[in-house]
């Protein structure tokens, strides 16, 4: 009668998949590099400066009509995109939301302000019943600072975490966790290159949460590894890792599923504004769960762990080197 996502007492040998998972991770990372340098990230105005206007019309208006109307009044590059609305399918109430993005024109704030007014007037005249949902304009100066702060936040978070795990465990664990972390952040950036979903300030927040979550997962597995290393002093490291992952598997899957339930709800019903954000999170949870099982442990296995947790046991020959002998 109980719902069981994972059967009792799994004995999966996760390292037998290590060739496949290593291959998969390599492909994803190379893919990210290619996508990053060929397609690049679709930076929002937070990071590149410029103006974004989001409007809603009662009737459907073709994207081309906006372009035609605006190309007459704006010198800079204008991009018009339609925002899809999955909620429409559920509620039956379609709304026609369009996002207009205008490149930064010069550095003069007054020019930018006039431009917004002109665009708003033109659109109000052009389409009856138009509603301006959101208008954002960011100058070049601030956008540069926002990029810096974003990158700094991610680097600091990873650094702080590296330090904390080193403090609580051993450096090998720390390296394993951080490699898994960088792997996750990297591939998340890759998916943003491929899908061309707007990369803005809130996505940085999402990535940092992924950092936290992925780590959460890895730490739980490592905690069990530490415990089992103490308990089964003669068991090989590979078996200890396998045992620990299997023992925590049920919990790993449970937590991922509950978090995904919450995020998927938010993705479908939470509105346009945070859809990019929740997309990043969903992707990050999936990749974070995968990496804590397949990436972090593999690194740990490769690096090996010294097992003289208690000085008194040293004489008993519990060094990792002795185990296989």
């Amino acid at each position: 009668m109980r719902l069981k996502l994972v059967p009792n007492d799994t004995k999966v040998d996760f390292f037998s998949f290590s060739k496949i998972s290593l291959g998969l991770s390599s492909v994803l990372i190379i893919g990210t590099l290619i996508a990053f340098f060929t397609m690049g990230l679709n930076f929002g105005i937070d990071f590149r400066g410029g103006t974004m206007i989001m409007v809603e019309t009662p009737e459907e208006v073709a994207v081309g009509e906006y372009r035609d109307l605006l190309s007459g009044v704006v010198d800079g590059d204008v991009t018009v995109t339609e925002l899809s609305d999955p909620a429409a399918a559920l509620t039956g109430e379609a709304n026609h939301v369009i996002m207009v993005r205008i490149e930064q024109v010069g550095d003069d704030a007054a020019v930018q302000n006039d431009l917004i007014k002109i665009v708003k007037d033109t659109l109000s005249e052009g389409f009856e019943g138009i509603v301006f949902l959101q208008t954002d304009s960011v100058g070049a100066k601030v956008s540069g600072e926002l990029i810096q702060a974003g990158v700094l936040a991610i680097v600091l978070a990873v650094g702080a975490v590296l330090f904390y795990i080193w403090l609580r465990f051993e450096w090998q664990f720390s390296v394993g966790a951080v490699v898994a972390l960088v792997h996750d952040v990297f591939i998340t950036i890759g998916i943003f290159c491929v899908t061309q979903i707007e990369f803005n300030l809130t996505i940085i927040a999402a990535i940092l949460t992924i950092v936290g979550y992925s780590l959460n997962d890895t730490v739980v597995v490592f905690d069990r590894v530490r415990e089992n290393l103490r308990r089964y002093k003669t068991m090989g490291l590979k078996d200890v890792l396998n045992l620990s992952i299997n023992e925590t598997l049920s919990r790993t899957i449970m937590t991922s599923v509950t978090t995904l339930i919450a995020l998927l709800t938010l993705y479908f019903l939470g509105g346009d504004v945070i859809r990019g954000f929740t997309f990043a999170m969903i992707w990050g949870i999936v990749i974070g769960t995968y990496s804590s099982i397949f990436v972090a442990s593999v690194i740990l296995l490769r690096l090996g762990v010294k097992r003289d947790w208690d000085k008194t046991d040293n004489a008993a020959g519990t060094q990792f080197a002795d185990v296989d002998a």
Partner: protein
Amino acid sequence: MLQFSIWKKGLIWSLCLLGIVFSTPNLFYSKVEKANDARALVATGVVATPEMEVDIAAWPEFMPSMLVNLGLDLRGGAHLLVEVAVEDVYADRLDSMWPEVRDALREIKDDVGSVRRQNSGPNELRVKIGEPEGMPKALEVIRDLTRPVVTLTGAGSHDFEVSNEGDILIFQLSEAEMIAMDDRTMQQSLEIIRRRVDEAGTREPTIQRQGADRVLVQVPGIGSAEELLDLIGQTAKLSFLSVVQQTSNADIRAGTGNVVYPDADQEGVYYVLERVAVVTGDQLVDAQPTFDQNGRPAVNFRFNPAGGRKFGVYTAENIGSPFAIVLDEQVISAPTIQSHIPGGSGIITGNFSVDESTRLAILLRAGALPAEISVLEQRTVGPELGQDSIDAGKTATVIAFALVLVFMVLTYGLFGIFANIALILNVTMIFSLLSVIGATLTLPGIAGIVLTIGMAVDANVLIFERIREELKGGKGPARAIELGYQKALSAIIDANVTTLIAAVILFAIGSGPVRGFAVTLGLGIVTSVFTAIWVTRLIVATWLFARKPKTIEV
């Protein structure tokens, strides 16, 4: 692990109770908001109207009335980040020193010879003296003009630094004086911006200084950031100048002591004006929108006594000649003086719309900004989007919540219900903490709460999975539960501390939406650890001792 002393039990339950009590006002958001507004008005001495009495009665006084502030993205409004050109003020300051320097040097004319001001960079005043031999004396005299700066860091320094290059005397603002001036300029700008926003009658604006020379203005409920910028972006420096001549040549040589300003409405019309103003906007005490005798929008103004006297004398002496009303280096009108204007009041006509005259009156009443400001960032959220976002956020939160609750019961049965009680208390506590610390809830903040719902069960899952393992290992119910809590603790702490590190860094570095997210995520971590470690343990322990089950299923 399962024994709780009485006071510990009491403490845990009273914390939960406090959480519930302090989160309730948010369930009656609009009612409490109205009551708070009405009470605030009454507190300022306004006599309550019957409607206000009703509003006040709707929410009893003894109940907590702190609410979660809704961010701009949830209620609609405008956000502006502007930079104040603090260095603008330096030039004015040096200009104002020139007459003093000149007079001081003239007194020792025999030693220094002729005194002439030279063109110089914006941050210095260069004076050439006729007799280079008199330089030591000149320096001595000029140094006496400088005054010590009173600041915490600039102790011992003077407001100006004086040096010389051959026969040229250089007068510069000192570092300490510049810092002190920047600070004054920012204080003034903040004050003026606050007055202008208040005059426009908007609700709960946020006006904050950010960094050295920036101001963040957030006004909920205003239609657009452009509207807000019209109000605060203009320097609004008003002055009354005498007209030398009207011309169509923009490059005309103005002559010493004169300036050329364009006409605000007519293209190609310029005025040569005397630089020194007859009266300036500083001396206005009131300005109101009105209509002139032809029914066109205009602005009515009144000077303070000193300004009124000057204006009266000037008009009496210059009947028949034109004078110019200049706003931010543009001539808005140049009427001819018909008669002596005593009493110190007058009317500014120009090519105004009603909106413009209303705005000009506000700007004149609030005063001029000490320096120009430029926009770095402007954002507007329409009220429709705000409402949509709240609705979407509410629906998503409720559904996510329900799904997780059902999922937990399906997986862990009775223990799932225990975890759910903790989860509900957890969200309640997040809201009460947000209300009490006066944090602002934004859309990413709601996402943070939803994420916490997903992750809060993690601690319980860790514990329950451990209990399952212990039961499998043949331990009795009480022992299994005790060991489950004990052994899961280190994983829970490590996992949550790492996430908390991320949240703290987000809060420290992030701005706007990122910060809102960090706050709810951070609070969520704290409350979820509390509810998982103490609240569920207390519930489980109470249940265990009451029922004393022979076997349990988790």
